[in-house]
């Protein structure tokens, strides 16, 4: 039996699954950003007609999965596994959505790394021969995240220059054993990394080491280097985190500046009064399912390393004065198999 593990934390697929469908739904603010034409739906009301922010987020999650299914004429009963997560306590957004969809469900918590975590596992299920069709999906909502992690919406606090704006959005990707690409070919699973950053308002700085760790190990495990990729995508390091990432990678001799793209920096533009960029599970999810896969199908990118980073803190851990452990998961997506 040929081993599919390479190195310390990477898997090389023998039968790479294909991405056969995708959907992205965003809130009004994201719908005014530079990527607005790439999203399947822009909400006008971020309550989505629901009674609470949490129910609204769950609704968006559900809509994204439904839309992805509709695009390829599949029904929930055709899907073998749903991998999903979100930022809310006990991941109620995903769980309540999974309740309506009745697909065998693995709930995940990877904070903002959830999209990559879900894609990793969804892909492994297929290459491992355990499923024919799987879905990876995630959501986040500015208001539900703000009231849980930070402050009530109407509080007159002032945002610091390093703070990030949680994206309101949901993304869903359908993977299949059958298909003609784009393919997920490698999965590099992150380890939890913590270099002692305690400032919950500077998540980019907390997450950069985890991102560096996964990238370095991915290159070491696979033997690839930055020149083998059209794009190295991070989820939400923001300006601050990205610069710190380059600094750490430089010490190992890696330079990704020319091919690096951070979803949090792409989803909003300067005029939208965002300090350090967008964040949240939904950020990388909608940019992947909206912009990246769209441009990939048009041939702009052939091979990308999609890596989302997550800060694994809670309000309790920060109040207790603990530092912020982070993780970054990555998958290689390529148009063609060679």
């Amino acid at each position, binding site marked *: 039996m040929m081993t599919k593990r390479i190195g310390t934390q990477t898997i090389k697929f023998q039968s790479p699954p294909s991405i056969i469908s995708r959907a992205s739904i965003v809130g009004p603010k994201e719908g005014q950003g530079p990527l607005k034409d790439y999203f399947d739906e822009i909400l006008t009301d971020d309550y989505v007609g629901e009674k609470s922010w949490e129910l609204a987020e769950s609704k968006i999650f559900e809509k994204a999965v439904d839309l992805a299914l509709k695009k390829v004429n599949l029904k929930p009963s055709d899907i073998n596994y749903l991998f999903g997560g979100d930022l809310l306590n006990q991941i109620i957004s995903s769980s309540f959505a999974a309740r309506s969809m009745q697909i065998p469900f693995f709930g995940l918590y990877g904070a903002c790394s959830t999209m990559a975590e879900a894609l990793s596992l969804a892909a492994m299920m297929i290459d491992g021969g355990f499923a024919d069709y799987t879905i990876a999906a995630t959501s986040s909502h500015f208001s539900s995240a703000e009231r849980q992690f930070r402050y009530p919406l*109407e509080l*007159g606090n002032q945002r610091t220059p390093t703070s990030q704006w949680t994206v309101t959005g949901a993304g869903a990707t359908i993977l299949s054993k059958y298909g003609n690409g784009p393919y997920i070919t490698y999965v590099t699973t992150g380890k939890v990394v913590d270099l002692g950053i305690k400032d919950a308002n500077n998540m980019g700085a907390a997450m950069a080491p985890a991102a560096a760790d996964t990238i370095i190990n991915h290159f070491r495990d696979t033997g690839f280097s930055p020149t083998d990729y059209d794009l190295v995508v991070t989820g939400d390091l923001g300006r601050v985190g990205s610069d710190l990432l380059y600094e750490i990678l430089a010490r190992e001799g890696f330079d990704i500046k020319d091919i690096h793209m951070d979803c949090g920096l792409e989803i909003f533009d300067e005029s939208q009064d965002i300090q350090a960029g967008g964040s949240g599970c939904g950020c990388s999810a909608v940019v992947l399912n909206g912009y990246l896969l769209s441009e990939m199908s048009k041939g702009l990118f052939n091979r990308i390393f999609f890596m989302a980073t997550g800060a694994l803190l809670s309000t309790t851990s920060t109040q207790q004065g603990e530092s912020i452990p982070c993780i970054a998961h990555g998958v290689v997506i390529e148009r063609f198999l060679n």
Partner: protein
Amino acid sequence: MAKDVIKEHEYQELVKKTEPKPNLIKNGIGAFVVGGIICTIGQFFLSYFMQKGLKMQDASTITSIIMIFLGAFLTGLGVYDDIGKRAGAGSIVPITGFSNSIVSPAMEFKREGYVFGVGAKMFVIAGPVLVYGITTSVIVGILYYFFGR
């Protein structure tokens, strides 16, 4: 493995060095002007009630109540947080900010019900002000009784 590439304290130094600093001048002006305006509005009410013959203490109490109402109302309308974005401490430090810090969680957690949401969470932000203020005043009182009279 990241720890092999860069040491913890070295990284923390790097973060501190590269962290963007807030625009002190812009924020300072915002705080000064908005704080000043709110206090001037308060002075308007204070002068009015004292002119009407009320003692300073009573006039001050009524003025506080009015300012608290104004802060609450602007919070309800959804305007206070827009002021706060630009004003910073100028809208946090005056008593209208105290009011905003009580009304905003009350509104926010309404969805969790009027007992556990509104009722319990109302003081989630302003609580420490009351706890520390009142406790310090008790200490002051005790010290005054023994040493001040």
